[in-house]
């Protein structure tokens, strides 16, 4: 059954703040094999004009996707998560995420489309710091495969 269009524009309450730790950034940078010193060395980050180490561009996805769980698991929306694949991902940055940030995510259902029997849902996650300033927006497009496609 197609998803209910009336959910478009629905905004979920902001998450409790996620505190970005230096060692979590290091762990992520190591996992992707990225040795840029701005991720691990506070002095190198300062030389670039940042107060502390910054996170790789896609780091914030872990936080925004967890926040999008409110949408994905909303029983009223009724998305069958076992059929969902990640279609597109986009970020628009005001500034990089950095260690010490306390980030709150506000998720909104931006679009719901039905294409060739698939439900396509775009969730926008607005990321703000403790001062309420915008840091980054993440758009996650999820595609729920139609039931008739089951092999």
């Amino acid at each position: 059954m197609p998803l209910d269009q009336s959910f478009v524009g629905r905004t979920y309450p902001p998450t409790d703040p996620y505190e970005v730790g230096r060692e979590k950034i290091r762990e992520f940078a190591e996992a992707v094999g990225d040795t840029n010193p701005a991720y691990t060395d506070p002095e190198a980050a300062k030389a670039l004009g940042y107060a502390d180490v910054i996170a790789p561009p896609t780091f914030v996805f872990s936080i925004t996707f967890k926040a999008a769980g409110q949408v994905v698991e909303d029983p009223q929306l009724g998305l069958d998560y076992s059929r969902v694949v990640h279609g597109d991902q986009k970020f628009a940055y005001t500034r990089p995420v950095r260690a010490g940030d306390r980030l709150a995510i506000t998720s909104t259902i931006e679009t719901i489309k039905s294409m060739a029997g698939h439900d396509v849902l775009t969730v926008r996650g607005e990321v703000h710091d403790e001062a309420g300033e915008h840091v980054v927006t993440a758009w996650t497009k999820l595609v729920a495969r139609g039931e008739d496609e089951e092999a």
Partner: protein
Amino acid sequence: MTAKVQYADVEVGTELPAQTFPVTRATLVQYAGASGDFNPIHWNEKFAKEVGLPDVIAHGMFTMAEAIRVVTDWVGDPGAVVEYGVRFTRPVVVPNDDQGATIEVSGKVAAKLDDDTVRVDLLVKSAGQKVLGMSRAVVRLA
């Protein structure tokens, strides 16, 4: 923010240094832990095959993280990235051997925009096939 590439020095068509990134099963386990994405399609061959995949596949977000390194290594300052988006068009299949898979990334300047920014289009391939579509970054140069 201090990019090491000057806006005046690039033109449409300027190529960024291409890079190749290895990915093995061990890489995926490490990425799962660091990112918190423990979907078994990224580490459990039996499960992956049961859901119709040829084998274990890399996290799309892992591939996305590797691809942008061509841009961040070029400009030096990762905070110079203003926008970054991709479409996940084909999985990176990671066999259970010492070799794993490789992700090949090249990029070139596709447009010069306002405020010293440029759009870089990335070409991301594995096993000879394109794995990301619409892979684009906007980056602020010096």
